[in-house]
């Protein structure tokens, strides 16, 4: 055989060998990648899907609580933030007295604080004692619904005093020892729709201004709304003390305009029932400002209340969003309510539906594709045995 022919044959064999090797290599790759493929970078805005996290898997049922309230009290209105390398939650403890008929009446409230290194495992600070208590005349024995920001040199808190009597401010270097700013509230209910009632603030600092979202409006439609109001308003401030209320029509309290609310109950789950003349309630906003691409998005997480529920324990969390600071668009009926769990119980001959109540949300963005919500929850199963209520945790992430 000629030398050139040997070389050509060798070349052919080499090629075939390489091809066979590549084939086996390719086949051996198997089914790499995830089962769906192409999911890892899907943008996630934080509007859905929210799922409660079972933090106590040894106990039956989902137990999303990070703090459970004691007998005769209720934990609510958490303010969730990440500051100084740790996670913090400031929340209201509301105390009740019950009469001989079992009717509960709120008698006082104060503010507690918890801390965590991972947002899932929490400890109550200050020995479980309140870090802010009512003491000023206008607070009338109630301070609650805190909204806390990490500011220069420590923290600043805005809180509700009394039963919607105003919003006060306080500062602290360590989150435990607080000094109130002045003897009067920094925001009062002086607009027509507020009826002298404002509360449940959420303050963010964005684009050089403090921006406060608060709920207001005097109503007795539910016990919850009696404290938190049923409409949501907006104000901004350069110093966190002097506030200017604004609305979507560019009305401003600074110019003496009548300023409207920025959000009202419009969806059925919020309790709006025109046939029966019920207004429903939206209240206790929690604000998260994200910047997913080239513009900011203001997300509002808020409580909606089924009007007429005497126990107030049929509240849910909804979501609205805006590309400015106050022109909110509510999530559609696939989005809202974002947290609305109910529990079926089948007993012989009857079926009952116990509604969990999820309310007063506060949300942070942990990663670009993970959001964590702290909220108040009442547990329907425990209702059967005396009630379990506290601060609970939910996450929004891809494929929980």
């Amino acid at each position, binding site marked *: 055989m000629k030398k050139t022919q040997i070389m050509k044959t060798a070349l052919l064999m080499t090629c075939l060998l390489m091809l066979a090797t590549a084939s086996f290599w*390719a086949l051996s790759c198997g089914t790499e990648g995830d089962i769906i493929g192409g999911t*890892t*970078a899907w943008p996630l805005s934080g509007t859905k899907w929210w799922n409660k996290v079972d933090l106590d898997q040894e106990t039956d049922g989902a137990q999303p609580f990070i703090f459970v309230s004691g007998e005769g009290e209720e934990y609510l209105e958490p303010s969730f933030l990440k500051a100084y390398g740790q996670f913090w939650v400031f929340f209201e403890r509301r105390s009740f007295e019950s009469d001989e008929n079992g009717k509960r009446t709120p008698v006082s409230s104060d503010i507690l604080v918890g801390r965590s290194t991972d947002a899932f495992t929490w400890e109550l600070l200050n020995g479980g004692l309140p870090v802010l208590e009512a003491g000023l005349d206008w607070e009338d024995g109630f301070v609650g619904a805190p909204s806390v920001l990490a500011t220069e040199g420590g923290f600043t808190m805005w809180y509700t005093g009394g039963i919607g009597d105003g919003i006060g401010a306080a500062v602290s270097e360590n989150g435990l020892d607080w000094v109130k700013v002045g003897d009067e509230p920094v925001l009062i209910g002086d607009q027509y729709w507020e009826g002298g009632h404002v509360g449940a603030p959420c303050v963010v600092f964005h684009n050089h201004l403090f921006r406060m979202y608060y709920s207001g409006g005097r109503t007795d439609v539910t016990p919850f709304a009696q404290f938190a109001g049923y409409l949501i308003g907006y104000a901004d401030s350069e110093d966190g003390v002097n506030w200017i209320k604004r609305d979507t029509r560019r009305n401003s309290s600074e110019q003496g305009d009548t300023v409207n609310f920025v959000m009202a109950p419009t969806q059925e789950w919020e309790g709006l029932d025109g046939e029966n003349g019920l207004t429903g309630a939206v209240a206790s906003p929690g604000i998260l400002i994200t910047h997913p691409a080239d513009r900011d998005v203001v997300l509002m997480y808020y409580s909606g209340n089924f009007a007429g529920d005497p126990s107030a324990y049929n509240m849910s969390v909804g979501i609205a*969003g805006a590309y400015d600071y106050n022109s909110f668009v509510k999530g559609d009926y696939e989005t809202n309510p974002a947290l609305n769990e109910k529990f079926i119980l089948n007993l012989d001959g009857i079926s009952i539906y116990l509604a969990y109540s999820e309310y007063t949300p506060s949300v942070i963005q942990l990663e670009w594709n993970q959001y964590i919500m702290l909220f108040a929850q009442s547990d329907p199963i425990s209702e059967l045995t005396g009630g379990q209520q506290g601060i609970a945790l939910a996450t929004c992430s891809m494929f929980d």
Partner: protein
Amino acid sequence: MRLTIIIIIFAIFLPAAVYATPYDTFGAGTRAVAMGNAYGAVGGDSSACFHNIATLTLAGPFQLEMDYHRADVDIRFNDRRTDIDPDKGYRIGLVLGKTFFNRRFRAGVSMYIPDQHFMRFVLPPRTAPLVMRYNNINHMMVSIAGLAGQVFPWWSLGVGVTTTSDHLGGVDFVIGEDRPAEGDLKSRLGSEMSILAGTYFEPLKWLSIGGTFRDEHQQKMHLPNKIGMYDLKVFAENGLIIFHDGRLVLDVYSYTHFSPRQYQGSLAIKPNDRLIFSADYTYYEFSAMKNSMAYSVAIMEGDFGEVFPCVPPLDVPDPGLEDSWGIAFGTEWGAFVRDGFRLDLRGGYNYKPTPLPDQTDVSNVVDSDLHIVSGGAGVTVKALSDFLRKPFSIDTFFQYHYLEPRMVHKSDPTSDVGDYEVTGSVLNIGAGMTVRF
């Protein structure tokens, strides 16, 4: 037991469409891909089945081809890379033919076989972003077979059929908290077909003209699923049933893997035996695509119907694809030709404006204007051995896809996806051989 039957159109988690076949996205054949897929008036191998089936007549009477490619996809949302699986698989081509009455007649087949799955559908939430050209497209077997013949030595005609694999079947099982699941998964491969045709002229010795028609191709998927559940007890010890047995019958229908009807005009100039310049223009009828969003009919019995959402999930609007076009340019240069040995160098460029309008609403089909640069080399050796007396070729290529950055702004600030910018590139490399007998 209560019986609640709820009909839901558009369930929450349903298969959403991906588009096209691997051939639409990457082209077919190592030589053609290297030449920017400007191949409709070049031909001469089994990849002509896709590019212009009439040019099968330029192939030898018996040639076997096999090549392999791997495309690594780097698509980014807001500068974060997705994990879209690489597209990789084999293409096997075969051309057989005879010459009658001084006219060449050829039969050809070009088959793409992915090395991961014969068929795969993605199953994301309906609003999840899907990159229409790249999301799992290669997880589908594609075969194009056809016939071509010379009417005159300067005019050829060809017709063929594109066949893609399809998946049929679904799950049927019952699950329980205190007993093993029972049931089965019925799954089998089906097929979808569409026709293609081509014509090829050589009006001058140095000029070739081609025309190709590829019909629309879209798979209709039907997945009948039945999922049952026994009584669910909240406390196993006391037998308190919180969820009576139920059954979910979920029939899913979806149109997927859309490939538009295409009209292609091609031109090739051959100044001499060592040089080819080619160009293709293709018109794509993307507007004919049926709404790619899947719909289903769900029948929920028992307590399923009490706890699952009872309102119909929102309709996802049609992404509204528009007709589009693409141009391709290619060249091949015989850089070294001597003593039965030939080295060809190839290059090409392909531009495809996106057919996708801005997705400001709920739908999140993703695409952008696409630039493709390619290159490659081929070695042909004559009379390799006594067994291989005809030329034997080895070809390699690379292909680089560049998606122009595109910002997507959502009109609804509560969109679950939100605003995003998509950017991306794909590096596709491959090699193959052609054996002629």
